[in-house]
């Protein structure tokens, strides 16, 4: 097989993968929310931007190419007291389907400001080791989603107090 043909096949495979949104966000499940900064650097490289202006948390921002014109593709938040990762936010622009991450029966739905007055809904899937996966604003199956958040349940009261109520 010539080099050109081989590269063409690899390119085709990459193109097919890039068009396949059925796996969008699955990489979040690989985070234990126990990682230290060095673990993240070995997996993701160094962040594009760091915000350490908060006394208790430090955020790392990663861009993912031209799509990230408005928001960063990944936002990783560490707790300063033990330097452990507490949340990973994945932004999609444009929005994608994330139903594969929320199999039937695996999640609950919460509404803001209340169930009686639903203006914003979140699908919540409880994972192992105290992790929660949130589909922000996408409470129903088939709704394109622009943001997934993997968050440790210990910081939900401070980051998402309305979910803790």
């Amino acid at each position, binding site marked *: 097989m010539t080099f*050109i043909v081989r*590269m*063409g096949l*690899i*390119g*085709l495979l*990459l*193109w097919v993968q*890039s068009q396949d949104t059925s796996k969008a966000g699955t990489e979040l499940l690989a985070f234990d929310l126990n990682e230290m900064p060095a673990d993240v650097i*070995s*997996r*993701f*490289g160094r962040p594009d*931007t760091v*915000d350490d*202006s*908060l*006394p*208790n*948390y430090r*955020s790392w921002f990663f*861009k993912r*190419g*031209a799509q990230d*014109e*408005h*928001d*960063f593709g990944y*936002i990783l*938040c560490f707790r300063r007291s033990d330097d452990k990762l507490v*949340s990973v*936010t994945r*932004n999609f622009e*444009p*929005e994608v389907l994330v139903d594969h991450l929320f199999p039937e029966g695996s999640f609950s739905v919460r509404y*803001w*400001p209340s169930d009686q007055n639903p*203006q*914003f809904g979140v699908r919540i899937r409880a994972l192992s080791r105290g992790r929660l996966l949130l*589909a*922000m*604003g*996408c409470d129903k199956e088939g*709704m*394109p*989603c*622009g*943001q997934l*958040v993997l*968050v440790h349940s210990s*910081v939900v*009261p*401070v*980051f*998402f*107090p*309305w979910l803790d109520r």
Partner: protein
Amino acid sequence: MRFALPERTRLLQGQLVDLVVEIRNASAISGFKVTLGGADITARFGFPQPAPLDCDGGSHLVVRANLQSIDSPGSVVLQAEATAGGARISDSRTIEVRPFNISARRNVILFIGDAMGTAYRDAARLVAKATVDSSGKNSFRQGFFDELLEMDKMPVSGHVMTYGSDSVIPDSANTGTAWASGNKSYLNAVNSFADGTDCRWRFNGAANATTLPYILDNPRVENLWQYLKRRFGYRTGIVTTADVTDATPAVEGSYSGYRQTRFEIARQYIENPLLGGQPAFDVIMGGGIDQFFPAARPDGRNLIAEFQALGFQYVTNATDLEKVRPATGVNLLGLFKGNAKPASNSARLAAADSNMDVAYDKLLLARPASEPLPDFGGFTDQPMLDRMTAKAIEFLSGGITTPFGSSSAPFILMVEGASIDKQSHPNNASGTIWDTIELDRAVGVARAWAASRGDTLIVVTADHDQSMSIIGVSNVPDTEYFDHGRKQDFSLTSARGEQGFTVFGDSYANTRASLPFINSSDSTANRSGVNGMPASFPSTVTPADPYSDTYSTYFGTPGYPKDTKSGYPVNSAQPGQMLRRLAVGFRTGDHTGSSVPVTAEGPGAFLFTGYMDQTDLFFKMAIALNGNTADGDKLINDILKRYPATVGK
């Protein structure tokens, strides 16, 4: 205790700002006192309110005095103190207050080329001003241009440092905050400072409807557009090729901790919080219908109908724009692009961007291989930026007839070439270069209008730089340059994962991000020797070909022809010829931290010399409006008369 104000807060006399005191680890305080220049202003503050500062679950308080101003110029000490838990706590800021008063009727027209760093201006010049006429003569010969860009012809220039408060690499929101309000802030901030509740949305990216109160509670600082309208009756306008709620236009008419709160920004355009609920602008033009439309807005409001009820003429295409005329009490709302898409599910803060199409597509030029084909989405009659600029000036200037005669209110207008940046993010060289040319033609409209008046300051600059650089010239045959099927995908697998990239047939002229120069052309003549890259500028003047000593006529490959109807350069070769194009490279698809050029003309233009901080632009525009610029203006005129002019100016 701390004031949520930057260390170096600078204000104009009378400029509004929210004074916010954050008190951590306290559930109650006593003896709260705030002084300003020694005077007790405690009564201006409300009661302490609990606030989730720093997201640490602790008890914290915030005390606010919204929309305050300082009337005495000079350095003023703002001091707060209180007793909490038996201890006396305090904080202070020294605020620099600059004097301001209108002593002459002067207009300001500010042009922002979004991401228009030095290379972008140079590229626009090398394409627009190196065209070949019908006799084969190139307007760029032996290193000189017959005519420079409009922005090149302006007599004063300087450099602007664009750093944000939290990043060397800024975005359009915090850079806009710098030149619109005179103060630095963080990425994504629109005329707002950071505060302790940003942890609810900024540190985990959860900016959405549930966190909107924490996005909008950031301390606000008044921009020059509202300041001049509120205090001196200025007419105000924004013209952009972006969605009109995008960051650069947003900083003239709204206040938000996060630029993507587009629905709120549109609301503030019609009921501006610093203007007592009155509209922020007299003229609004650009894309972005959806942010105003009830089908997309969560509140169901039809802001377009509300603007019309307030006397705004509403137009949606270039043909109608040419027909509208200013009349008594009539202002202008022109929205030329929409998506008809609902708000994004995950934020509920904005509809999808609906930026106007870029100049390259509006001119119906063929897109090179690596650039996407246009999608007008039914909006096929969009105006060019120079026509929008002309109409804005017509509406904002003396075209208004009032019962007392022609309006004498001066105006301040911002005109943005938005897609210089938006096309640079995906490395679309043609898209970005032609948009820079489009902006320059709009500058020409303003210069022509202002030339004989002597009362209008024109400033042309960028909000930040982008990564394009000029790497030479290329002569790719059109058959390769425009072939969208001609591309090759590559991938690199490493411990960091897989990285993929694509090389397109036009890469010889438009090198993609992060790649070394790649000669993808099949044409043997392009691959090596004097024909190869980069930057062959041969001197081969012969009697038979007296104009061949420029890059664009070398070896029978002429430069850009000019379309006689539109006046724009054309990016395709004549039959039987091969165009010699400018070649550019993109190191990344993102902003850079390099300084950007600024050029100025008109009263007070001399202020825009040397290296300056971006916040200085705000104060320099203000000083120019003070009218005390006669000596400096005379000096510039003397220099222009006495010293050699640059060829082409």
